């Protein structure tokens, strides 16, 4: 029996929820560590490898998306709404890709070693320049807040569609399988 695809594929949903947890953790760690004295070192030690893991996952996720069939938008969405949804998705992908690169780049420009764990470390990707570091460090903060606001908008839109419009928006990305009748 062939029914119309209602959900994102299982791999897309898995990557979505895995990254949602990681990115929210990352935003929390990031904003906490810059205000932290006692926890600073421990938080930074998690922040660096987690950021690189997110960079790797977002690339996998982007490729996976290119080769997957997507479910259609709910019929309730106007063409403008669809445009906004697609644009915000693109913005999220871009931020998730650029933010770890800015982090890696700013540590490179400051000549901090980019230690993942133990003796495993990454090479610098930019020349040693503290002026460049200063710009990237500020950019990292701005992108973090932008990422957080984009997340809030995304979360809010899904809640609105699911609870007020009630068009089943959430079920498209639900972690469990939603059967089409």
């Amino acid at each position: 029996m062939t029914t119309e695809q209602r959900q994102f594929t299982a791999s897309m949903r898995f990557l979505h929820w895995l990254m949602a947890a990681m990115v929210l953790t990352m935003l929390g760690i990031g904003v906490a560590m810059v205000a932290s004295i006692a926890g600073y070192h421990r938080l930074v030690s998690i922040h660096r490898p987690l950021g690189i893991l997110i960079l790797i996952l977002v690339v996998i996720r982007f490729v996976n998306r290119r080769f997957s069939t997507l479910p259609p938008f709910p019929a309730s969405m106007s063409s403008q709404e669809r445009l906004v949804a697609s644009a915000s998705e693109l913005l999220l992908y871009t931020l998730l890709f650029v933010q770890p690169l800015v982090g890696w780049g700013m540590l490179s420009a400051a000549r901090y070693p980019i230690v993942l764990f133990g003796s495993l470390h990454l090479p610098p990707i930019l020349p040693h320049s503290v002026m460049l570091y200063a710009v990237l460090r500020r950019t990292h903060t701005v992108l973090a807040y932008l990422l957080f606001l984009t997340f809030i908008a995304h979360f809010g839109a899904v809640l609105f569609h699911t609870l007020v419009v009630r068009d089943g928006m959430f079920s498209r990305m639900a972690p469990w399988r939603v059967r089409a009748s």
Partner: protein
Amino acid sequence: MPSDSTSSPKEQPAPLTSGSTLARLGGIGIVLLSVAGAFLYLGGWFTPNALTPPRFADAFERVDGIYSGFRRNHAKGVCVSGFFEGNGQGTRLSKAAVFRTGRVRVVGRFSLSGGDPYVADAPDTVRGLGLLFWLPDGEEWRTAMINLPVFPVNTPQGFFDRLVATQPDPKTHKPDPEKMAAFLASHPETVQAIKIIKSHAVSSGFDNSMYDGLNAFRFVDAGGTSIPVRWSMVPVQPFEAATTTGTAQGDKNYLFYALIASILQHPLQWHLIIALGQPDDRTDDASVAWPDGREQVDVGTLTLDSVESEETSRARDINFDPLVLPAGITPSDDPLLSARSAVYSQSFTRRAGEKKEPSAITPSDVRK
């Protein structure tokens, strides 16, 4: 669960009453605000009086002023380079590659404590030595040491309160002795530490000073066994007691000039001595020394054979963060370590974007 109501896209759910719509919208608003609130809470927005790295850096700036492009503490300095030659004795204690037999390149920076980069040299001003070791496999070890046998405080709050107590009074332009007295009255560990510090004679220059890593760390060997350690750089140059001649002659940079003359004459050397702690030695209190008689291991020799002004050296743009450690060295439970890392990073970020003013020790000074 929304799945039932969406079993078919054509099937419209029964319309919500306007009250129900409002309630749902309100619920959504509360959820979003809670998430945003949690985010701001983590960022310290609701605890404006908590001790944070920016508040630490602000305190340094209030006490010493802001000097564009300079470190917020240990602002006055010169840069050096050379190498460290491990003798292999450290490999049984730590798997860090720096302890194997052989040479690794080193850059460093000698400094005087305080946020004024043009301060007049004085024998009692705390001297610092920051070092960066480039390990063969691309790892790094950074350490920032000073010429005190113990640290005057043992918590970040203690450091902060002591710093604030040294803030010059706006009228007299001098620290208020009553504030320092009040600080000492509530910090017996500082009184004790100052006694130990005063009992050690200060050497005549940077070149014959001992530099101490201050905090305890842990060495991890190849088998995963970890032991508490403290380290110090012990000078090969013979000890000579400090005099105040330089200051008396009004030569503001006499300590730095003597260091430059000395290093241009012959390479300067220090032995890296590791003190091995016993299981019940305190590793979380930098204000107390370990008991006498702890095993000391000489793990190699530091040779510094070149000196440069900050203006031409890459060491100016390096943060000597004491928690940049190779595999084989890990932090202890000393609360000052994470605080140092956090505050150094804040100082580095602030100065990184500022215009770089000339250092007290200029490129022509190091060519004399």
